[in-house]
C-alpha cells in the first residue's frame, strides 16, 4: 500500500471540486513525498482534460434512415497529433478525434449503430470494435481498413451489453494501439430485455431514474513508451500520469460509484486497479447483471480486458482515498490517484 504522504485536509479545502486549478496542483506537489512529476500539463493545448474524460460520454446522434429505421451515428476521425503526455514530455500520438483515449461511445443494447470513420492521419487505420458484428465490419487489414484521406462506415447492432473497447487493428498492431488509437465502447443493457434483473439493468442504463443516483467514471488504463524500447515510461488512467493525484476525483458520499475500467496498456500483459479502504463488486466485461467477483479491493485485467466496478463510500468518513495499480512500478510511474470523498 502506498502512503498518502503529508497530504492534509487544509490543502484539500482549497480545492473547490473535481476540477482544481494549477495553483492547487502546485500546492499538492509539496506534499506527496517526492514521487511526482515536475510541472503541469497544458490540457488546453492537448485538447482534452483527463478530468473531463472521466465523464464525457459521447452518445452520438440518433438519426432516422430512409426506411425509417432508427440509427445511432458517430463520426470519428483518425488524426496525427502531438500530445503532452506528461509535463514537458511530448509524444507523437495517433488519435481518434484528437484525444487519447478516443471518445467514449455509449449506446443501448440492440440499437443499430453506424460509425463514419475518416482517416485524416498518415497511415492506414481501422476501428475494430469489441462486440458482436459481421465479418465485413471487423475493422482489420483487408476488411474496413482505411487509407489516409479515405473513409469507411462501420454498421452493426449494439450487442452484447457491457463495457467494451474499440481500437485500431492495422499492423503493426502494437504500435497502432500504443500510439493512442483506442477508446471505450459502452453498451447499456435494455431493462425491457432483462425482466429477471430489471432493476440492475435500469441502474446501468443512462437516463433512467434508477441510473440518476450513480456517479459513473471512465478509466482507461494506458501507458506510453516514449523511447521505443517496448517498455512504458509512463502509466496512467486516461493518459495523463498522476492527473487525479493532486486533483482528486470528487465523490459524493451518498451516491454509489460505478467505474468502467478498460485496460489498453501495451507491452505489459497485466494491469490492475486497487481502491484503498474499500471493497467493490466487479462485473467482468460488464456483460452480466450480477457480479462476477464480489467484495474485492483489487482486480487485474489482461490487455483489452475490461469490466465494471461498483462501490460506495456511504459509510466512510470524508477524506482522500487512494486508488492505483497494484503493480507498484506502474503506480510510481504515474498510475496513481485519489478519490476525494465529500
Amino acid at each position, binding site marked *: 500500500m502506498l502512503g498518502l504522504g503529508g497530504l492534509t485536509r487544509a490543502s484539500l479545502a482549497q480545492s473547490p471540486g473535481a476540477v482544481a486549478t494549477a495553483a492547487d496542483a502546485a500546492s499538492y506537489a509539496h506534499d506527496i513525498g517526492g*514521487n511526482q512529476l515536475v510541472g503541469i500539463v497544458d490540457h488546453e493545448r492537448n485538447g482534452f482534460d483527463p478530468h473531463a474524460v472521466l465523464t464525457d460520454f459521447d452518445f452520438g446522434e440518433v438519426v432516422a434512415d430512409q426506411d425509417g429505421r432508427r440509427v445511432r451515428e458517430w463520426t470519428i476521425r483518425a488524426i496525427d497529433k502531438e500530445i503532452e503526455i506528461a509535463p514537458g514530455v511530448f509524444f507523437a500520438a495517433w488519435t481518434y478525434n484528437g484525444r487519447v483515449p478516443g471518445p467514449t461511445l455509449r449506446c443501448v443494447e440492440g440499437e443499430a449503430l453506424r460509425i463514419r470513420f475518416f482517416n485524416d492521419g498518415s497511415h492506414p487505420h481501422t476501428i475494430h470494435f469489441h462486440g458482436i458484428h459481421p465479418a465485413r465490419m471487423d475493422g482489420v487489414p483487408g476488411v474496413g481498413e482505411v487509407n489516409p484521406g479515405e473513409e469507411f462506415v462501420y454498421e452493426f447492432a449494439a450487442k452484447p451489453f457491457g463495457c467494451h473497447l474499440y481500437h485500431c487493428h492495422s499492423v503493426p498492431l502494437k504500435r497502432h494501439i500504443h500510439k493512442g488509437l483506442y477508446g471505450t465502447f459502452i453498451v447499456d443493457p435494455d431493462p425491457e430485455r432483462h425482466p429477471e434483473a430489471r432493476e440492475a439493468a435500469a441502474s446501468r442504463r443512462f437516463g433512467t431514474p434508477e441510473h440518476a443516483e450513480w456517479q459513473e467514471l471512465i478509466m482507461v488504463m494506458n501507458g506510453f513508451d516514449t523511447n521505443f524500447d517496448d517498455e512504458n515510461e509512463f502509466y496512467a488512467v486516461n493518459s495523463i500520469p498522476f492527473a487525479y493525484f493532486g486533483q482528486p476525483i470528487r465523490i459524493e458520499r451518498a451516491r454509489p460509484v460505478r467505474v468502467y475500467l478498460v485496460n489498453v496498456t501495451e507491452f505489459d500483459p497485466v494491469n490492475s486497479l486497487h481502491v484503498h479502504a474499500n471493497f467493490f463488486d466487479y462485473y467482468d466485461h460488464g456483460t452480466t447483471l450480477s457480479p462476477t467477483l464480489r467484495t474485492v479491493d483489487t482486480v487485474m485485467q489482461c490487455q483489452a480486458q475490461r469490466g465494471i466496478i461498483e462501490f460506495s463510500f456511504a459509510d466512510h468518513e470524508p477524506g482522500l482515498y487512494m486508488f492505483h495499480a497494484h503493480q507498484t512500478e506502474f503506480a510510481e510511474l504515474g498510475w496513481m490517484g485519489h478519490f476525494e470523498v465529500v
Partner: protein
Amino acid sequence: MPRSAWLLLPVITVAGIVAFVLIGRPLDDFAASAPPTEEIVVEQVRLEPGMIRLTVRVDGSDPVRIAQVQVDGAYRQFEQNPAGPLSRLASAVISIPYHWIEGETHHLLLLTSSGAAFEHTIEVAQATPTGSSFGLLLLVGILLGIAPVAAGLLAYPAIRDMRPAGLRFLLALTLGLLGFLFIDTIGEGLEIGGEVLGRLNGDVLVWVAAGVTLMTLLLAGRRSGKPPEGIRLAFFIALGIGLHNLGEGLVVGASLATGAAALATFLMVGFVLHNVTEGIGIATPMTKARPGWQVFVALAALAGLPAVVGVWGGSQAVSPQFVALSFGIGAGAILQVIVELGGFMVRQSGAAALTSLSGASIMYSTASLRPTIRRARAGRIECRKWIG
C-alpha cells in the same frame, strides 16, 4: 600577385560552403520530421544525506530539455540549476531529494521533452566524502603512492653494489614495468574516455594528451642536447610514474567514493606490492651518482604525491574528461621515460634490453593483485564477490 595568395582560395571556398549550408539550409528536408538528436551524460554524482546531486552535460541538435527524472523506476521531484533548456555542451546540476540507501544500487533515468531516456546507475550508494574524511583519504593516498615508492628506493644501496649483469636485469625490469604501466594507463584512459560526452571525444583526448606530453618532455629532457641519464633520468621516471599515479589516484578515489570502500584493504595491499617495483625502477639509473637523501625524498614525493592529490580529487567526483586527460598525460610521460631509458640501455648493453619483457610479465603478475579498480566500477556484483 604572390603565390601565397592562393591560400585565400580554399578559405573563401570553405566559407562559401558553410554559408550555403547554414543560410540556404538545403539539408532541412532531411531533418524536417526527424526528432532532435540528444545526448545526456552524468559526469558527477554527489550523494548527500537525503539528496542526490548529478552534474550532467548535454549535446543535441536542439537545446535539451530535461523534463522528468526517475529514481529506481519512480518519478521524482527535482530541481535543475540552471533551469530551462540546456544548449549544446552545457552542463547543469540536478538535485533530487531522495532517501538513497547506503550500500545499495540506485538507477537514475533522465527523460527529455522528446521522450528520450538516459540512464545512469549508482552502483553502490555511499555518501560523498566531506572534510571529515580528508585524513583517511590522505592516508590512502600516502599508502598508495608515496609509501611503496619510498620503500622501493630504500633498496638503493643494494642496487648500487650490484654487478653489471644484475643491474642490467634491474634496468630491463624497470623498462618492462614502464611498458606495462603505459598499456595500463592508456587502457584506463580510454575506458574513462568512453564515458565522456560523444562530441568531446574522450578517447582522442587521451591519445592527444599522451602525444603532447611525450613531445614536451622529450624536448625538455634533451634541452642540453643529450638524453637524460643518472639522477635526471630518475627524476623523469619519477615524473612519469607520478603522473600515472595521479590517474590511478583519481580512479581509486572515485571507487572509494562510489562504493568500493569495502575493497579498500584488498586494493591497498595490491597497490603497495605493485608500486614497490616502481621505487626500484626509479633508483636503478642512479647507480653511478651519489645522490643525497634530499634527492630520494624529492623522488618519492614526485612519484607518490600525485596519488594523494588524485585520491582526494577522485573522491570529489571529478569529470570523466579530466580523468581521461590525466591518464593521457600520464601515458605520455611514461612513454617519454621508456624512450629515454630504452635508449640508455641499448647504448649500455645492446640486445640484452630485450630482457625487459620479463619486467612486463612481473608487473602483469603483481597487477593481478589489484584487479579491482576497473571491476569495482563495473558493478557491485564483483564487489559482492570479493566481499563475500
